[in-house]
């Protein structure tokens, strides 16, 4: 079991110097996710620009406590999704999920996943998959809330 397959240099770099860390204003939704097994937690905020279907991810900020994998993953994710249309970012989420659940048999696409391809090795360490997904789950949940919120405002209006 090669440790280096798991701990790619990119991952350790992001872990030591995480991008976009710290909670920031403005934001449309904030979520808090926990990994029940180890207690790792993340509070994550999403800010979308615009309020219609064509939304873009304007900012992602977070406060996370966790292992190298979960910390690096949320850092890489922020890099990836900030500035992207929500729909494209969601496709990346799905792609990353597929990669993680692929037991190491899925070939990641470096063009779309960029630094996140470094997590391909995590798929071979089942106990760590949840770590790599924690930030993505929190992000997906926050986006769902952010896009639901205005809709329900419209509904009640």
């Amino acid at each position, binding site marked *: *079991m090669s440790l280096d397959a798991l701990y790619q240099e990119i991952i350790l770099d992001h872990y030591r110097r995480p991008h976009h860390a710290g909670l920031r204003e403005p934001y449309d939704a904030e979520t808090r996710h*926990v990994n*029940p*097994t180890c*207690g790792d937690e993340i509070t994550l905020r999403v800010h979308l620009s615009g309020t219609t279907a064509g939304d873009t991810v304007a900012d992602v900020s977070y406060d996370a406590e966790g292992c190298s994998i979960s910390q690096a993953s949320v850092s890489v994710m922020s890099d990836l999704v900030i500035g992207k249309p929500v729909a494209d970012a969601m496709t990346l989420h799905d792609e990353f999920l597929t990669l993680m659940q692929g037991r190491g048999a899925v070939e990641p696409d470096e063009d779309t996943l960029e630094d996140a391809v470094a997590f391909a090795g995590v798929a071979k*360490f*089942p*106990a*760590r998959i949840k770590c790599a997904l924690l930030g993505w789950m929190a992000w997906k949940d926050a986006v769902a809330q952010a896009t639901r919120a205005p809709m329900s405002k419209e509904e009640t209006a």
Partner: protein
Amino acid sequence: MTTGMIAATVGYDVERVRADFPILARRLADDRPLVYLDSANTSQKPEQVLRALDEHYRWRNSNVGRAVHQLGDAATADYEAARATVATFVGATDPAEVVFTKNASESLNLVAGVLAWADGARRVGPGDEVVITEMEHHSNIVPWQLLCERTGATLRWFGLTDEGRLDLSGVDALITERTKVVSVAWVSNMLGTVNPVADIARRAHEVGALVVVDGSQAVPQLPVDVAGTGADFVAFTGHKMVGPTGIGVLWGRRELLEELPPFLGGGSMIETVRMEGSTWAPPPAKYEAGTPPIAEAIGLGAAADYLSGLGMAAVAAHEHAITAYTLEGLRSISGVSVLGPTEAVDRGGAVSFVVDGVHPHDVSQVLDSYGVAVRAGHHCAKPAHRRFGVQSSTRASAYLYTTKTEIDTLVDGIHRVRKYFKVA
């Protein structure tokens, strides 16, 4: 019996099946071969299941879902694979809908237990009604009695026809707007009756009641599609389906497992714990407090694989043929009457009977001296016995390893019983 079922028996080689079950080679007192006709009580286990248990402990034993090490990964993978196997086996599309419990009784108590504490409309309270039937196993009676006693709800039940079928004539008076839960055995462990659970579920859902199906005798014997029953919950138990003891299943619709409150609290069922209060993990973990029956779940997965290998249609066809043969054999003895359907139509493999003038304990004692293992007593179905005016009965229950020769030995044994007690 449908043509499909007949076709399925053609390839069924009971002797090859028997070779998988080490205990069937056992000799009892006086060097008599074991004739095991107590499978509705608990089934015997094939080599394949014993090996799965043993290899787990020998090579991969670890706690699950908690540890970051190779054994932990292996045990967790095996445990979750078993969940997926069991889900597929009963036609559940989502493994998260399969909760591992210790037996069917816990599964049924789980549902009854949480309904006392549910939020909103699901909560059972004064004025609400729970509907069961007079042919239920005690494990599908007592949990509802406790729930009703403790919450002020009322327990009602379907009666039985003389043939041992549900008397559905009063269904509209029984299942009403007040009904919160309907809980019914799919196959009776005493009368053998197969109940029309899908029909009952449909009626129950019309009034917004939850539908619980006790599948303890159905899952071992029939090809089962839990979602197809229309039920919200189906309970069953490992040890009756060639699996180990110590493991049961509650299949439940995911929305309900998400919505209802927890049952047992503790490790593994939490999202987070503070002294001031806790939140819960999503199902199935939410209902699996503490270290689960890990080896047992893996053993149950192996059991489901074993049954799938034989094909449940073939198992059902074999069971059907043997049951018909048993009913025929019993009919041939005077002074013997069967409780429950006397023809093998909509009927499972449990055959309960009384021998005039001989108490069931004495019947089974004499049979035992010939190596024939049957059950004597009320089979955890006292109300059904009372319905037929008896306190107890003798029950012969065949399974996938039972041969016609064994049934001949049973029939022959009953003749000897009658002679021994001078009622012949």
